[in-house]
Structures are given as structure tokens and as C-alpha cells.
């Protein structure tokens, strides 16, 4: 089947029911997307499928075939970080950072559908992601900053 990941096209010969997470990590060597629970409870494996936040650990790869998949590796444009990534750096919105790719992808999906989220919108969009180090206060701050920056950039455009 054909997979479109981070703008590149891959032909992969895998069992259609294998998880998208397993194919990304093991076949495409994209290890930025993490395994956390294997049952869609922690959000560590979050990727975008056609812009929508998707739990790759419970998504059969066949359902993503032919659709646009974006992982944490595909977010930055060359050397330029996506505003959400930059805001996570600015606010040190992590400790061990194992959950960080999932949080960033969930936040990017939120900002894609809601450019001016309220704090409660942010909390609810990220409620499926767990950060065991407890960096939540910083994550909230980072997503707010990213939203402001995106809004500003839009205003200029």
C-alpha cells in the first residue's frame, strides 16, 4: 500500500491491520512518534492524518493509506521550527519529553481547526495526552504562546 508521510510517498508491503505506529517506527524508521500505552489512552503516539489528531497505536495502517500523515519529524520547515515546537522550547514545556511529540501534534491539530482557542479549549484538546513529569502548566503556556504567534502571523499575511 502507499503511505504519504511528511510529504514523501512510500510503498510498504505490510499487513493492513498492523498499527500505523508500528509501521512508522519500524518500517519508516520514524521513531519520534512514541509508544506509551498501546490502547489510545495516553496520546504519546499522536500523529496527524489529514490534519486530524490520530492515535497511531490503535490505527490500522490501512486506514491511513493514501491520506496525508504528518509526524513530529515533518513539522519543522528546514531549520525553522513550527510555532508550537518553538513555544515548547521557549517555555521548557517538558522534562523527559517522551510525551512531547504527542502533545505537540495534538496542539498542532487543535490550532489547525481553532486558531483562537480558549484555555479550556486547549485543556480539552490535550486531555487525551499524559505527561507524567507534570509539565502541564508549561504546556498550557506554550500552546497559548503558539496560538498568539500564529494569529499574529495570520494578521500580517
Amino acid at each position, binding site marked *: 500500500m502507499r503511505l504519504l508521510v511528511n510529504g514523501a510517498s512510500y510503498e510498504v508491503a505490510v499487513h493492513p491491520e*498492523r498499527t500505523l505506529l*508500528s509501521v512508522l*517506527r*519500524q518500517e519508516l*524508521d*520514524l*521513531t*519520534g*512518534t*512514541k*509508544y*506509551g*500505552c*498501546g*490502547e489510545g*489512552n*495516553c496520546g*504519546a503516539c499522536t500523529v496527524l492524518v489529514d490534519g486530524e489528531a490520530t492515535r497511531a497505536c490503535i490505527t490500522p495502517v490501512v486506514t491511513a493509506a493514501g491520506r496525508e500523515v504528518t*509526524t*513530529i*519529524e515533518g*513539522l*519543522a520547515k528546514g531549520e525553522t*521550527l513550527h510555532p508550537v*515546537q*518553538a513555544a*515548547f*522550547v*521557549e517555555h*521548557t514545556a*517538558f*522534562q*523527559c*519529553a*517522551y*510525551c*512531547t*511529540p504527542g502533545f*505537540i501534534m495534538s496542539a498542532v491539530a487543535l490550532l489547525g481547526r481553532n486558531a483562537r482557542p480558549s484555555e479550556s479549549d*486547549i*485543556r*480539552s484538546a*490535550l*486531555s487525551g*495526552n*499524559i*505527561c*507524567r*513529569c*507534570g*509539565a*502541564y*502548566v*508549561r*504546556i*498550557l503556556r506554550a500552546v497559548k504562546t503558539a496560538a498568539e504567534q500564529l494569529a499574529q502571523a495570520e494578521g500580517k499575511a
Partner: protein
Amino acid sequence: MNLRDLQQDAGLIVTGAPQMGQDAAVPGGTEATLLLISKQGEIYAFSGKVEYGQGIRNGLALAIADELDTPIASVRVILGDTGLVPYDRGTTGSASTRTIGLQLRRAAATARRTLLALASERWGVPLAGLGIREGRIVQAGEPGRSLSFVEALQGRRLTVSIPEDAALKSPGEFQVMGRDAHRIDALARVTGQAKYSRDIAVPGMLHGKVLRPPSYGARLARLEKARAERVPGFVALVQEGDFVGVVAESEEGAEQAVASVYARWDEEREHPSDWDLPVQLKERAKELAVVRETGSLEAGFAQADRVISGLYFVPYVANAPMEPSAAVASWEDGGLTVWSGDRSPFGVRAQMAQAFGLGEERVRVIASEIGGSFGTKGAGGAAYEAARLAKAAGRPVRVAYSRQEEFIWGTVRPTALIEIRSGVKADGTIVAWEYTAYHANESEFRGMRGSDTPYSIPNVRVTVARTESPLRSGSYRSLGGAVNHFAREVHMDEIAAALERDPVELRLANLEHPRLRRVLTQAADKFGWGAPRRGLSVGRGVAIGYDAGSFLAECVELRVEGREVKVERVTAAFDGGLVLNPEGVRNQVEGSIVMGMGTALWETVEFGGGRPLNPSFSRYRVPRITDAPQIEVLLVGDPETPSTGAGEPGIVPIAAAISNAVYDATGVRIPELPIVPHLP
């Protein structure tokens, strides 16, 4: 990369004992290479510590860059590779900054002095006028003159040992320490480039999966492997006593093969469960060990106007780091290399050497990035399993735990039952304090942490017993510290309530410790402790604490809504002495508060039949972003006081502060964790 090549290529090598604690009883270790400057001018620092989220790589790099006045980009901190770094004990007890951090600063200061001496000789000028700016040696009043470190070394290879009197910068001279800075490892972390244990792959690597018994202590009675052998990609099945593992070409293949093994197990007949745990803790307790005995309890209670008794219980809680354990093992010419997400690489090396009958020099353990630990991931389950399977398969093997395996085969924070009896005079003076704790631990040591009272009480007896643990107990942020603080600080509130005194004021009335008085006063002021209440179901609670050499107080405001508790804001005042990295310290204290909130409100490992019964995030409720309160952390330490621990102390007061606030909101005292299931 190996150490000999690095040393060969070095211009300057600084050696010393790997760590210098403030505690004279802690040996510094054998003289080793701690820092070197390569012929290309790169600065390498070596430490056996590992990075599991606390930011130690960043903290050490900042300290070295500052002592050498050199750009942080030229500093490379090598962590947790037993082939490169000296043994400097594990990463525990919030001790890295105050032990190895201090010694690496001394190593950098030694390099600085050596480089300046070389420049002074070369230029024929006195040392006094020389300094370093942006990694170049400069002379005061001679703006045109400067030397890089490489130029100063002139192709020499010097080895210098850290002298007794290595002079560190004073806090006033810091350029980068003490200020907020982005973490140097941030970029790799937000782009998915950081490599954790299960991200590591080596050529020819296979995947291993261990067959888990249905309960702790079960013995293998019968095994049929025919079905497993037919799974596509199956490579080998290894059986050694009760250990059974399979190796396959893919992770899925290994999972499928292990699920296809038919095994019959003989299980133990009687297992304790979380229901009868509090009783068991006391009944099965070993001898009580005395932590402190001062004055006479009998005389103290005789003077008391009131005697207040309390019983406190804390269940098992799971560390549940976001990254389940994983390791890769590879054998070559009879030697073993392990890449592991374990928090003690030297512990794993010793374990491997012993298990396989190898000399330690034949085992190299390389720490990956670690996706959280909080005290679990001790000497290696996954590492040992990977090494066994790799040895049998004759190829490298990765073992990566599932979430369920991490919950069941990782370690948990020990449960405890604590009894407190206090004698109080009518004016609020505590005159007698009897504290008896039963912690489910293999040694008393862990349960003793934080058990002594910091209040000024003339007649005190503190005793701690260990009890056999039905679950795999291990370390957790602050070990028994958070558990002991919960009991003591809830009891302090019970005294205040019994005497109808304000909880802050009653604590101050019994507290002489100047640093604790200061954190309590400052937290209460900033929080607005005296301000009017905001509604009926809103409660406020306070608790103080000490841990890892630091002192702190936390005030909590929360709302009780039906059967749920919403923590709305927390103010913490933290005194960890001199703060080298304020952003890092605040991050740690905030994280400890959030983690402690989980233990206070929801978390408990249910078990029965010899295994945990809720080994998933759908049945084990941890804090989520919807639960996160507003948190303010005040750093109030005196910069002239040496740095003390920051990774753990934040957790010690929070559960009591929450329980006390729930009492304030509802009038119901809940001396048992977690609180939410016990709400009326």
C-alpha cells in the same frame, strides 16, 4: 567513541574523584578523567548520571560553561556510558547538582586556572590581569590580545588533578548560572530526534518478548512451544528455569509468538490483597528501628492538656513513567554491550557481569535518553532479559515492555501505615510526639526518609519498621518522604482543628527552624492565606516539608464538587540554597506538585491473586492537563547556602496540603490516600 581515543586527542585532561559531596561520609571514588579539552577545543565532561527528565545534562553544561566563561555550544556532557564515564553512584536522592555538579565545577575551575597560567607564561605577564571571555583568554587593558584554549595549550597534552583549593566563581560572578535559559537538549526533544531506549536499533537486531507468569512467584509447570514456532518470523524460544522468552524478526512476531506459547503455572495459594493491606502491614512488621528518641514521652504526655491520636494510610502507587522500560543487548567476542533506559548504568553493568560470569570490563552499558523514572527502572529487568535472549539467539535483541508489563513488572512506591500520638498544651505547644511507621520495604532506610519531625518538640520518639511487600516495591520521588510528610502534616492540622487554631499559626508556634519558618511565612503571604474565603465548597490547606537538604511550604486552594476534587491553585516557597538553574528548579517543583496531586486524589494500585489488577491508564487514573492547577513557585533560598536537591522535595507536602484543604472545604478529615474514593 572510546575514552582512550578521547584522551589521546586531548590537550588538557582534568582528573579528580568523581564526586565530592558535602557529606564527608560519602566517598569520592577513584581518581578519574572528569573533564578534557580536545585538540579541537571541544570541552568534554564525564558523569555517570543519566538524563531522565530532570535536566542534568543541561545543568552540568551550564555550570562548566560558566566556570570556563566559554560558549555552552562548545561543552559536551557525556552521561551514563560505562565505557566513558567514571562511576559516581546512581542518579538518586536529588544529589547530582550538589555532588557531581560541584565536582565538575571544580574540574572546570582547575582547567581555567591551568589555561590562564599557560597564557601568563606565554605572554610573560602576571596571572592577576588575565581572564576569559567567550572562550578566549584575554588580558585586562590589552584589547587586541587574546588566545583560544587550543592556542594556549600549544599542542601539549597536560594532565592536571583537581587541587584541594580549586576556587569556584561566587554567585555574583555567574554569567549563565542563576539565570533562565532554554535547555540545550530542547531542539532534539521537540523534533523527535531524541533517542530513548526503544528507539535504539543496531544492525541485525531481533525482537524479544518474555512470557510473563500469571502472578508473582508462580512456577512454570509445563510448556508447549510448537504453536509459537510456527509464527512467521519466529527465531528462537529460550527456556531457563521459569524464564521463557521468544525472539522473532519483528516486534509483532515476538508478541504473537509469546501469545502462542502454552504454559501451565503453579501459583501460590494465598495472596494478600489491597483490601487487607493496612492490617497486614502492622501484623507482618519486622522490628521497629528508632530514628530519634528525645526527652521522655511519659513526662511529655503527663504535661499535655490534650492527647490526639491519628492513623494514616498510604497505598501502593505506580511510578508509571511515560516510556515503558526497554533495552538492546548485543554480544560480540564474548563481551556484552547494552543500551538501556535504566537509571543506573553501573548497576546494570554489575548485574550483567555477575549474571553472565564476566569481568566488569567486558560489559559496557550505554544510557539512552530516559522517558521518566521517578525511582523505577532500577537495575535492569529489560536489560537482563535482552542480554539473555541475545546470547541464546546469537544476534542483538531488543526487549521493549508493553504498558501492562511496566505496570506489573516495574516497581511501585511502597504502601505504609503510620500511627501518631501527640500531647498538646492548651496554648498550642506540642510537648509529646510519638510516631510509629510501618513501610512495606526490604529495608527500613527508605521508610525513614522524612519520618523525623522538624517541629520543636521536647519529648519525641520516632520509630520505623519495615514489612514484607507483596508487590515489587522500589524507589519513588522522595522514597518514604512524601508518605511520612502526609501523616505528619495532616496530624498537625488535626491538632490545629482540635484547638481551633489557624493551621499556619499553629505550625509557626511550634517551629524554630529558620528556613522552614521562612518558607512557610513566604508561601502563606504570597498565597493570601488570610484573605476571605471564596465560597462554601472551596477549601485551603497548607503543609511544610524537608527533603534532599531543601525546605519548602505549599498552600493549596481547591473546590470539592460532588465526588471530585478540583485543585485550583498551589503556591510553593522553595529553599534549595543557591539556585544554579531557576527554570529547571521551578519545572521540577511544579512537576512534583502535579505528580503528588495524583497520589493524593486518585492513584492506587489495586491487587489481588498475586498481581496488580489495574495495570492500564484507563484503570489507573493519573493527573491530566484538565486537572492541572495554577502553580506559583517562589525560589527563596539564600545564594550563600550550598545548592541542595530539587527533583524530589516538591512532592513531600502536597498530599497533606490537599487533604487539609478537603477538610477545610467539607469538614471531613480523610487521613487515607487516595482521597477521592473516600469522599463522603
